[in-house]
């Protein structure tokens, strides 16, 4: 009986453990779309050229990848490195991270400050490397539709409202949006940055200043945020961001707010930037660059530390960084990376990124700055408020303050 039990347990353990690792390093990631997969292939090739044996394990969907990653830790077979969308400190609190050493540390120190701080653990040891930067506060405009109606790309929110009203009268859907909370968050951030500026955004949303959150100004911002719903359609509940981009490509919608990954969709359709479509900062955002960046976190595995450090060093080189970014559709993290071969949208984003860094005005995305509870709570409130006809801006303010106060 006990032997039977033991055998069952052992079989279970084997099942959970999965296949044994043959390669030196293993990367767990969720980059599965066409452009993302191309980036991973290049990443592997770069590792190979540098003499690092890298195996990649792809899982579709970032939440599935996160779940698998946790299961791998629980079963004692953690990968050596993984893509992460969480602030590094969340991982640092949960599991030991690798120390990538002084060479990598020096390279990280040369990166824009807003990026570099997210790559070190609490003891200031480098434990992650960035791959590429994605600009999130981008307004995608359908120039073809705008031209037909004699309209231009709006530079501020007042102009946006006037343009959208004109489009509504002409029977064109002004704003394409999908169902995810992230797309509503993009709108909200675009309004806060565009109407109230970076300082207000930092103090009210990032630092959760109770007076600002409860103030008149926030109420007005929330009101304006929901007023945008009047420019959208009911079909939003069953489409994702690519579905929204498709509405632009079909000529049925004029604008979309989403990150610069949309660029690839327009390029695939053969649209030319500046002629068929346009990519500008969200109205009133000017040169503000609100961004997130892809990064790989390295877990502590002393036997493999040498390979980990070598791989991290390889990925930080300017030419590797540029190649990976070009394939995935963002911009390189390094300020000195060569931008030839990037299209006009990426060039503009890179110019704003570098200028923003020089002015000390880069805005790192909330996903990397708020705790998970606060960030999740913020998205909950915004999407509930967006969906609701009854929730008043004041009620939303109260819930916003509660959500942002939460500690993990």
């Amino acid at each position, binding site marked *: *009986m006990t032997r*039977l*039990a033991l055998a*069952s347990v052992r079989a*279970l353990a084997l099942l959970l453990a999965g296949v044994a690792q043959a390669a030196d390093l293993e990367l767990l990631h969720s980059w599965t779309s066409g452009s993302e997969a191309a980036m991973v292939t290049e990443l592997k090739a770069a590792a190979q050229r540098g003499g690092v044996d890298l195996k990649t394990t792809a899982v579709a969907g970032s*939440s599935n990848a*996160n*779940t698998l990653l*946790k299961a791998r*830790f*629980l079963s004692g077979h953690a990968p050596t490195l993984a893509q992460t969308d*969480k602030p590094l400190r*969340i*991982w640092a*609190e*949960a*599991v030991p991270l690798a120390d990538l050493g002084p060479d990598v540390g020096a390279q990280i120190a040369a990166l824009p400050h807003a990026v570099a701080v997210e790559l070190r653990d609490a003891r200031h040891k480098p434990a992650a490397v960035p791959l590429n930067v994605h600009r999130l506060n981008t307004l995608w405009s359908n120039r073809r539709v705008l031209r037909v109606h004699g309209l231009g790309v709006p530079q501020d929110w007042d102009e946006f409202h006037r343009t959208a009203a004109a489009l509504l009268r002409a029977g064109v859907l002004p704003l394409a949006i999908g*169902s995810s909370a992230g797309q509503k968050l993009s709108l909200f951030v675009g309004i806060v940055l565009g109407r109230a500026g970076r300082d207000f955004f930092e103090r009210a949303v990032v630092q959760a200043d109770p007076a600002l959150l409860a103030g008149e100004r926030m109420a007005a911002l929330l009101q304006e945020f929901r007023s945008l719903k009047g420019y959208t*359609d*009911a*079909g*939003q*509940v*069953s489409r994702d961001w690519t579905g929204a981009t498709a509405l632009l490509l079909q000529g049925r919608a004029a604008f979309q707010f989403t990150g610069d990954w949309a660029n690839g969709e327009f390029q695939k359709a053969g649209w030319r930037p500046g002629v068929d479509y346009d990519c500008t900062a969200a109205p009133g955002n000017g040169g503000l660059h609100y961004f997130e960046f892809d990064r790989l976190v390295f877990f502590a595995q002393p036997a493999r530390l040498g390979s980990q450090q070598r791989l991290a060093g390889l990925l930080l080189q300017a030419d590797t960084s540029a190649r990976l970014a070009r394939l995935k559709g963002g911009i390189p993290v390094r300020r000195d990376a060569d931008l030839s071969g990037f299209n006009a949208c990426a060039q503009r984003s890179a110019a704003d990124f570098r200028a923003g860094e020089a002015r000390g005005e880069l805005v790192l995305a909330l996903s990397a700055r708020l705790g*998970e*509870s606060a960030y*999740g709570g913020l998205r*909950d409130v915004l*999407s*509930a*408020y*967006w*969906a*609701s*006809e*009854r929730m008043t801006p004041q009620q939303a303010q109260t*819930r916003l303050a509660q959500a942002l106060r939460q500690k*993990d």
Partner: protein
Amino acid sequence: MNERRTALACLIPLLLIGAVFFYGFLLWTGWLSLTRSNLLPSNDFVGLKQYERLLLDPRWQAALWNLLRFSFAFVLLPLAIGLGLALLLDQRLRGEGLLRWVWLHPMALSMVVTGSAWRWLMDPEQGIAEGVRSLGWTGFRWDWLAQEEMAVYALVVAAVWQISGFVMALFLAGLRGIDESMLQAARLDGAAGWKLLRRVILPQLGPSLFSALLVLLPAAIKTFDLVVVLTEGGPGQASELPAFYMFQMAFERSRLGLGAASSMVLVMMVLSIALPYAIVRSRRRVTA
């Protein structure tokens, strides 16, 4: 005796798996709900803190309220529709075999398939609504999926479509089990139509009704897949049910302790329905 031992040996692996995967994980979840577990399980004991967080979370309260609205419709509608269909089929219809096959068919599909199909059908822009509009009723709107108040009932539509055939089968079995001589006697006494149904037939369907309730109530509490594929809990969190909340917290939000607490509450809700039934059954067996 030897036979008995063989039977036991065959059962042990199953019992072992059951013990580990059901009771083992139940206990583990119970323990996690008392710890500070976030991204990964931890053994940092915090007492009932997670339950306190859970009860104060407006999202959880909304999920419970949605569950109440959902279960009310999800239990009553299939009972009414199932009974109606069963009574209809019991009239010795000609196409009974075919009709029964058609009405039972949704049961053969998983909730995921049902949900995906209804997601298209109820799509405000492309689904049935667009079909009606293209027939000439241009002002027609059916956008429950986009409405805060109605999204829960969009779930009900798909779930009722799925389960009503099953309830019909239960009632039909009950109807066929009624002694024909009793019906004859009632008819001789002048009972017919509505009276016959209410006084003679319905009281005898008690066991069928009970079985149906025992399937429907726990199914309502555990509804998860339908929410995922049909509404993703939206718009906002307007159609979120507790099981979906539990998944979100435990696996997407890295609040494992909170998710564990919510799943313990769910287990207790299901047990509160299943336990009385089990007790009644075991008592009955003792007296019999």
